[in-house]
């Protein structure tokens, strides 16, 4: 018992000594390295990702009754005309759009994800927005707060957790299955080794939407790491393809 008390005292004393120093930045303390070029490896949900599904189909998406009129009224030409051709490239959908990611550190506390499909940019911020900051207008990629999280016990094992809100209403799939501006996207980024020295990036995505979903919509697209950006091929948003 005495030993435990002494140990506790030691922890408090040493902890106080160390906490006087500024904490390392998110970049410096990154427990996993997700930067680089990654390519979608579409081995699941192929029919919903690689081609545009039929109008009116929303299998596997727990759409609410409020979503059905919108699903059946999907009009890609009208979206295009209204300048909304990026509706299926928003943060709730973009990681499922086949393409390449380029992940870099924009600064010490912001991870940046560029996509060649739809030429979108996501900024994952590790520093909380000040409470007095001017509210930002909703956007396709919304506002993403990021943190490194421990996935397991005392040996380590970490993941990148990202929560995104303040998105413009968009589509979960190309054929107009909607999510609303009230949706929240929670993602976990994990790495796994592949044979031959390769690396797999797994993104577990949970979309919650009190308006157009009856239940969380969960997907987990994965990406293979590429050695460089030689296959990077930016293509603009399309409302039909």
């Amino acid at each position, binding site marked *: 018992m005495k030993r435990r008390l002494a140990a506790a005292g030691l922890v408090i004393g040493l902890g106080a000594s160390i906490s006087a120093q500024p904490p390392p930045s998110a970049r410096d303390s990154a427990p996993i390295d997700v930067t680089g070029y990654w390519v979608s490896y579409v081995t699941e949900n192929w029919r919903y990702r690689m081609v545009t*599904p039929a109008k009116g189909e929303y299998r596997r998406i727990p759409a609410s009754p409020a979503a059905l009129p919108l699903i059946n009224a999907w009009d890609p030409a009208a979206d295009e005309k209204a300048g909304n051709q990026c509706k299926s490239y928003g943060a709730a959908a973009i990681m499922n759009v086949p393409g390449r990611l380029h992940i870099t550190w924009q600064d010490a506390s912001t991870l940046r994800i560029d996509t060649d499909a739809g030429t979108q940019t996501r900024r994952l911020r590790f520093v909380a927005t000040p409470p007095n900051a001017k509210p930002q207008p909703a956007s396709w990629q919304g506002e993403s707060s990021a943190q490194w999280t421990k996935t*397991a016990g005392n040996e380590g094992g970490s993941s990148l957790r990202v929560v995104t809100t303040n998105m413009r209403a968009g589509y979960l799939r190309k054929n107009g299955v909607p999510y609303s501006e009230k949706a929240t996207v929670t993602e976990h980024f994990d790495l796994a080794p592949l044979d031959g020295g390769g690396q797999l990036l797994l993104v577990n995505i949970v979309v919650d939407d009190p308006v157009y979903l009856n*239940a969380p919509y969960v997907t987990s697209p994965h990406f293979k790491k590429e050695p460089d950006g030689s296959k990077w091929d930016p293509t603009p948003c399309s409302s039909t393809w």
Partner: protein
Amino acid sequence: MLIDLVALGEGGRRTAFVLLILLLGAGRASAQFEFTGSWGPIGTEDVQNDSLPVDYLGLALTDEGRARALAYDESQKSMIDRQCQGWGAAYGVIGPFGLVASTQTDPATNRVVSYTIDSWEDWNGLTIWMDGRPRPSQYALHTQEGFTTGKWEGGALAARTTHLKVGGFIRKTGVPLSDQAIIDWRFYRHGDVMTVVMIASDPLYLVEPEIISKSFRLSPRPLDYRTPCVPGYEGREPGDDVPHFAPGQNPFADEFIQFYSLPKDAVLGYRETLYPEYRKKIRATYVPPPPCKEACGQAGNFVRRREN
């Protein structure tokens, strides 16, 4: 025993702090999450691909793998000697059910010896040996469930399955997995969601690994899928021929293609169809299917509805 913190100096204090943290952690189990329990399927991802007989979307098959898949007739499972054969290890994630995981410990040391995931009627379950036992000889018995060892790695449970038996499948529609296949598994847990990643490699039937990631949610109620398989007469007499399709004669080869206006090389599992470049290739020729008229919104059998 108290330590003079001042005398240690800043560098010494840091070292002591690290050592102390290590000491306090010593003796606990290594990095892990609570793996055991009942994990219900979430059902919002399309990983089964078994609604129609010829659907090899998302696979990179060798020519031999494709030929064997096209030769498969699902009536084989009506043969009394094949009814309880099971679908092989991969069916744990491509099947429709949840996972019921438990731990086996050594009664003397209380250390984890293995984890098991319970079987279903048509799946033989999975035992993940965690005790560092060696993998058996390549000539050892091969089974539908194979031989699996595991370890905790970077916060995930990582496991590898070998010793799979000839006659296993990577798709329930007859896409084969050979006895040379290797399946690597990783189990990640984030809150009450566990995501299982299956990476299946097969030098005989796959050009590139088949990677499936499927999420499960911790169930507040125990799940139990352990229905025994009971074979019975299903119209096939002992000694009948094994149902199959001769090369080029699978009557269902075009069914899925026509139903959803899909490109043939994607449905038949060609490698290039797994990468984004393929979308650009087919963009000019792809004709979308007509609007969906029926069964347009089945969200999967196991999607949990929000409780209002």
